[in-house]
C-alpha cells in the first residue's frame, strides 16, 4: 500500500508564501523504503557561518529544502534496530542483516558529515545482547573489527573522530586493541564525532560513573556529600564529547522504547520512532526525522512567550 506523506508546514510556509509554486519534496512510502520525488534542480544552501550560497544539482551535498540549517541538531543518537527482522523477511541469515545494517550506517555517517551534525552516537551492541546465541555474538564482534579496519581510511578522509564507549573488558582482545588504535588515530580529527556504543547500557554507564566517584572519595578528592548531578555527568562515558546530550534520538523498526541506551543523557531529547527496519533506513527517513525535530515545539520546562 502506498501512503503519501507531505510536510504540510513546508507547503504552508514555502509554497503559498509566494506566487510561483515550486515542487516541495514529497515522500512516497512503498513498503519499508521511502523515495523522494525530484526536488528543484537548484537549491539555496545556507552555510554554517550564515552565508547563503547557490549550489548545483548535486542533491547529495545539499541540505534538503525542507531543513533549516540553523535548526539542525548538534547530536543525533540512533538505536539501529531491525537487522535480524530484515534478514528474516528475505530468508537470509542474520549476518546478512547486520552487513546491510553497516551499509545503512556508513550512508548515515556520510549525511551527518555533509549536513554539519557534530556528534552521531550509535547503539551497536548492548550489555543485554551478550545473551544472544554465541555464534551471532562472535559474528557481530568480527563484523565490528572488520568494519573498523575497512572504514578507517574513509573516515580519516572525512575527518571523523571515533570514540567507542561501553564495557570494553568483555570485548575480544583484538577488538579492544583495535578500539584503542582507532581512537588514537582519529583523536585529532575535527569533523563529525562518531561515538559507537559497544557492550554499553545506560545503567552500566551510571554505575561505572559511581565507581569512578567512589575511587575519588577514597582518595579524598571529593566527599560523598558533594556528589551532585554535575559530578556524575563528568564521569559518564559520554563525557568524551562536547555535546553529551543528544538533541534527537532515532529508533528504527517501529519499537518505541529506549532499551537501556543513554538513560541519563536523554532527558530532553526528542524521540523519533521510525517504522523502517535499520537496513532500510535511508536519506528520506533521516530527513523525515529531522523535519519532525525542527517542527516540534520544544521547551525545556520554560513557558511560551
Amino acid at each position: 500500500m502506498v501512503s503519501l506523506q507531505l510536510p504540510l508546514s513546508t507547503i504552508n510556509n514555502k509554497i503559498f508564501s509566494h506566487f510561483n509554486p515550486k515542487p516541495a519534496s514529497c515522500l512516497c512510502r512503498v513498503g519499508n523504503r521511502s523515495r523522494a520525488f525530484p526536488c528543484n534542480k537548484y537549491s539555496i544552501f545556507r552555510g554554517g557561518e550564515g552565508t547563503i550560497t547557490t549550489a548545483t544539482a548535486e542533491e547529495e551535498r545539499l541540505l534538503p529544502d525542507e531543513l533549516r540549517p540553523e535548526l539542525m541538531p548538534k547530536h543525533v543518537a540512533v538505536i539501529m534496530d531491525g537487522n535480524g527482522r530484515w534478514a528474516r523477511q528475505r530468508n537470509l541469515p542474520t549476518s546478512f542483516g547486520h552487513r546491510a545494517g553497516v551499509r545503512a550506517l556508513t550512508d548515515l555517517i556520510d549525511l551527518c558529515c555533509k549536513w554539519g551534525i557534530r556528534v552521531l552516537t550509535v547503539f551497536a551492541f548492548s550489555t543485554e545482547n551478550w545473551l544472544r546465541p554465541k555464534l551471532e555474538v562472535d559474528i557481530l564482534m568480527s563484523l565490528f573489527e572488520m568494519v573498523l579496519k575497512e572504514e578507517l581510511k574513509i573516515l580519516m578522509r572525512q575527518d571523523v573522530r571515533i570514540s567507542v564507549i561501553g564495557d570494553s573488558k568483555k570485548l575480544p582482545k583484538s577488538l579492544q586493541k583495535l578500539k584503542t588504535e582507532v581512537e588514537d588515530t582519529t583523536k585529532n580529527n575535527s569533523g563529525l564525532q562518531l561515538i559507537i556504543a559497544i557492550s554499553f547500557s545506560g545503567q552500566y554507564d551510571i554505575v561505572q560513573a559511581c565507581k569512578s566517584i567512589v575511587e575519588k572519595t577514597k582518595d579524598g578528592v571529593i566527599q560523598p556529600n558533594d556528589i551532585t548531578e554535575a559530578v556524575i555527568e563528568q564521569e559518564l562515558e559520554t563525557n568524551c564529547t562536547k555535546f553529551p546530550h543528544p538533541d534527537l534520538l532515532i529508533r528504527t523498526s517501529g519499537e518505541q522504547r529506549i532499551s537501556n541506551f543513554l538513560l541519563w543523557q536523554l532527558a530532553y531529547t526528542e524521540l523519533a520512532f521510525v517504522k523502517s527496519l535499520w537496513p532500510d533506513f535511508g536519506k528520506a527517513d533521516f530527513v523525515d526525522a529531522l523535519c519532525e525535530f525542527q517542527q516540534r515545539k520544544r521547551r525545556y520546562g520554560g513557558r511560551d512567550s
Partner: protein
Amino acid sequence: MLPVHIPHVRLAHLNNGCLHLQVNLRFMDLGDEIQRVLRSVGHNLVKLLRHLLWHLLHLAVSTWYFGLDLAHLLQHYLISSGLLRNYKVLNLSNLRCLAIVVDSEEAQHTSRVVELLSWLSAIGVKHVCLYDMEGVLKESKEIILKKLGDARPPEVADERSLFLERKHMVLEFVSLSDGKEGVAKAASFLCSNYLKGASSGEDQEPVFTEPEMTSALRAIGCGGPDPDLLLVYGSARCHLGFPAWRLRYTEIVHMGSLKSMKYGAMIKSIRKFTMVHQNYGS
C-alpha cells in the same frame, strides 16, 4: 513616346516595389508580433497549468490528511462508545505500572489530570506514576487523591496483595528531583556505605552493581517499579527528565497535549502496548 512614359512607369514600378516592400515589412512586423503574442500566451498557459497542477496536488494531499484525521476521530468515537469489540476488554496483565508525563504548565489543570486518572482506574490500571518536571502534580496530590476517591499513594497501598487483585489504584507522584538528583543522592549513599566499610577495616574493592543502585534509590525514597508504558502529554516528544533509572524497557508513546486528550486515543495506545513483544535485547 514610351520612353517618355518609362520614367513614369519605372517610378510607378519603383513606387509599387516600395509599397510592396513596405507592405511586406508590415506583414513581417505583424507576423513577429503575432508570434510574440502567441509565445506569451503559450508561456502563460503553461504557467497556469503548472499552478493548477500544483494546487490540485495540494488539494489531494490535504484531502488525504483530512480523511486520515476523520478516520482517527471516528475510530476514537467507536472505541469510546464501546462498539469496537477488540477495545472493550483489555488484557492488562503486562501493564503493572503505567507512567504519565505531563507538561508542567498543563499539569495545573488538575481536573483534566483527574479525568485521565479516572479513565485509567475504570479500565483497571492498578499502578500509575504521575510525573511533571516542576512538581506541580506533587503539590496537587491531596486534591487529586481526594477527587479520585479510590486511589492510594504507595506508602499506604497494600503491597502484599497481587497487583491485579488490588482494589485501589496506587498513585505515585514524582518530579525532576526524583530523577537525576535522586541518582546523585543514591550514589552518595552508596559511597558513604562503602567508606564506612573501608574505615571499619573491610578492605574491599568498590563493587557497585545495578541491583545495588536500585536498592540505594529505594533506600533514599526514589525507588519504584519500572513503568511498562509511559504516556507523554505535552508538546515535546521527550520524557522531560522522568527518573531515567526506571526507563530501561518502558514503551513510550506521545499523546499530544493534555487539553486535547481523548479516551479513545488512550485506549488505543494501551491496547497497542498489550500486543508488543519484547526480547529485552537477547
